[in-house]
């Protein structure tokens, strides 16, 4: 990644969950850290999120769910991106996600999962480090 390129992040709420305090706080923090942030709003299907990520040329997609539907929804976003031939988007997840579920989510292409109490600074650092280290990263 070159220093000039501004990181574009898509924050998304898949499924029917209406809890958006966390996703909005993170959106502001990423914006304040100099990233370009797009928030989908509530009730997005995995297909809608994949489309938006591609249309918006996102470098990162962050999925938020506190309703327990993450095992169903998160992998479908990662799979949808793969099916569209997109391999360079960093897909992350957050919300109320039991530790036991994390290995399978990572297996499915969710690179990291952050839970309650995570500081926004931790997330910003993670994004910067992992985009910088990505092969052919932008």
């Amino acid at each position, binding site marked *: 990644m070159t220093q000039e390129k501004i990181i574009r992040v898509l924050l998304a709420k898949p*499924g029917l969950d209406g809890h958006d305090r966390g996703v*909005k706080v993170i959106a502001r923090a990423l914006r304040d850290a100099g990233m370009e942030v797009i928030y989908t709003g509530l009730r997005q299907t995995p297909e809608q999120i994949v489309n938006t990520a591609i249309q918006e040329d996102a470098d990162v997609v962050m999925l938020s769910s506190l*309703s327990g539907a993450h095992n169903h929804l998160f992998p479908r976003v990662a799979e949808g991106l793969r099916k569209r031939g997109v391999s360079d988007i960093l897909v992350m997840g957050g919300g109320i996600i039991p530790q*036991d579920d994390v290995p399978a989510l990572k297996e499915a292409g969710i690179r990291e999962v952050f839970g309650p109490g995570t500081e926004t600074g931790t997330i910003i650092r993670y994004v910067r480090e992992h985009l910088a280290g990505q092969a052919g990263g932008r």
Partner: protein
Amino acid sequence: MIDQKEEAAISAARGKWEEEAAGQNGGAAEAGKPFETISGHPVEGLYTPQDLAGTDYLRDIGFPGQHPFTRGIQHNMYRGRFWTMRQYAGFGTAEDTNRRFRYLLEQGQTGLSVAFDLPTQVGYDSDHPLAAGEAGKVGVAIDSVRDLGTLFSGIPLDKVSTSMTINSPAAVLTAMYVSLAERAGIPPGDLRGTIQNDMLKEYVARGTYIFPIRPAMRIVADIIGWCSRTVPNWNSISISGYHMREAGCTAIQEVAFTVGNGITYVETALRAGLAIDDFAPRLSFFFSAHQDLFEEVAKFRAARRLWARIAKERFGAKNPRSAMMRYHVQTAGCSLTAQQPFLNVLRTGFEALSAVLGGCQSLHTNSYDEALALPSEEAVQIALRTQQIIAHETGVTGTVDPLAGSYYVEKMTDEIEEAALAYIDRIEKRGGMIAAIESGYIQEEISNSAYEYQRKVESRERIVVGVNRYQIDEPPPTGLLRVRQTVEEAQAEKLEILRRERSADAVARALDGIRRTARTEGNLMPPIIAAVQAEATIGEICDALRDVFGEYRGGTSF
């Protein structure tokens, strides 16, 4: 509350005391530290009778059970009867939740509170594509009146009071509950309970909207009107600050937005032709009990007084019950930490104490494991026991409104009421709550507060024990509740049987009836009851309404 002579004497003594305090070297320096509540409201080092100089006891504080109800809505409060201990519960299928309900009743809980899953709350059947992965997760899956029958199997509907956290499809669940009772031979007049039915806060915090705001408000008014005539002991709305507080707003904003929404519902019902004293006694409220103990006690007292004054002075209520703010409280879910989760037992205990000191009518205490998963049975039991300890062991229930007369609590009560009223005035200058929601103003105000709080946590201005200080290495928690993955299949099977067994013609006719009424100004409750009795599903009934009203699209700003 003090005369001029006394004021002068205290003022002089205070001057001397301040000199003395300034000269003390032993005390730790306070310079540079802002003292404030968790909401960011400034806190003085000392409060004295001077802070209450303008207070008129009878006008502003008064006696419990009397206007303006600052000290509580009953004359003897918990000396007569404790608050209703009501744990919000629901997961999986109706069978699963029925078992949890019976367990809670056996454990001494005194009222039921139903958590519905998200498909139910946004009006989709469990086999709808958008429901995939969500059925039975955050609550119980209910598709038809048959499921509701299973949910309350073996529970006498004329003996329990039931609270249902349902908003967009509130009319459907009310129709189902009343129909179920009717089948059991229980007249609607014997039913006690509450539906949330508070649509306005869904657009700013909770997110289970279906229809655009204005038709949604028409449905709310239809429900309030129908209930006031048909189920007189049913609380037809629970005007909720809780979810806005969870979304990050401050105590003052919680009071301002909740009372602001309350005003909007009253105006909507008045416009629909109802008289204030016919429905206002059945309006109920719902607040958070957050972590700052005295701020919360003051908040509850301020909200009660503010509502009483508005009901009487602005809306001309004659029945004292119309001015009585009755409310449920839930401890603050957002205060629970995933780190060192047992500490949440303590947080919840302090929060519950503030709810009781503030004079709540019913209370839900969160389980310590809820930042991790749905609560386990053990965690739910500890949460309920917390309330029982406060009720039976702490002694705080022996006298009414024990913190009244505290210079600090009374001053804070005044400040919260005053600031909330000023906020409401500002919102009315913007055209009222509906306009302020449509323009995104309320959402932005809440987001600002949430972000400000997060900034304080990350800069360590605010300490969250176990999260940004006193952390430990800990193993991942065990014993978390997991919802069976088979709920979706179980519900799909029930729906298939239902669709086979009922009369498709009767359902189609009933749904047409809903569409027809939706296009007029007629009350929607009768055709919805007819549809429920024909065993139409929640998804079908909400689709019929979607056909006429369309759907709301949420915002994307942050």
